[in-house]
């Protein structure tokens, strides 16, 4: 089973030059039964944003689309590198590329 959320917009050539695209995959969905992970099921979305977009906005948008809380979510690369959202989308694209995933933030210890 594969579910995808597409966002299509026809950009002008100038818009295309100044935008970066990401494919963000949701790796943990409490709505999906555990057995679904065994058949490579996943949710993902593709988005395109201006390079100067704060990556916090990308995180927030992705979280809203997947209906998970942005405050308790984080975005990492497909090979597990954490991405500090305090940078531009263009910077993230240059350093890490376009294939990302959103995971829930964990906690360590008790308050």
């Amino acid at each position, binding site marked *: 089973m594969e579910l995808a959320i597409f966002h299509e917009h026809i950009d002008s050539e100038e818009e295309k030059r100044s935008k970066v695209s990401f494919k963000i995959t949701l790796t943990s*969905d409490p709505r999906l039964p555990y057995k679904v992970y065994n058949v490579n099921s996943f949710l993902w979305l593709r988005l395109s944003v201006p390079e100067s977009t704060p990556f916090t906005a990308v995180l927030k948008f992705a979280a809203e689309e997947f209906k998970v809380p942005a405050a308790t979510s984080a975005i990492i690369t497909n090979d*597990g590198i954490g991405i500090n959202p305090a940078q531009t989308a263009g910077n993230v694209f240059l350093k890490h590329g376009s294939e990302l995933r959103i995971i829930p933030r*964990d906690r*360590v210890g008790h308050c």
Partner: protein
Amino acid sequence: MGDKPPGFRGSQSWIGCVEASLCLDHFGGPQGRLCHVPRGAGLHGELERLYSHFAGGGGPVMVGGDADAQSKALLGVCLGPGTEAYVLVLDPHCWGAPKNPSELQAAGWVGWQEVSTAFDPHSFYNLCMTSCNSEEQNRALD
């Protein structure tokens, strides 16, 4: 590091492996790669990866979760016949200078635990797998 909104410092909000990996990168420490283990999946699906991590010289693996937020670090993994598997778990609250490893084990700070019992099936987990950053080490030696 700017990853949290104003007011986070000094609050009772929590942090975990994600923030630890960002800190390691920000302060030039060992690399910390994140691995998400979904709720209910258990650690059995990641045992081969953990084995390769430690066999390849990887460092301690920090573990954080949601339903299970008990601090723990993995120092090793032992794969037995069939589905038998154990992880070497360190309680990171340990402090002081023990005289020998047996003292740590006797006090319960470190020990082997069966994978199915060490991890809560109702919790997701994030693992932060640390490994030497050879570039940083080379620079430090200059």
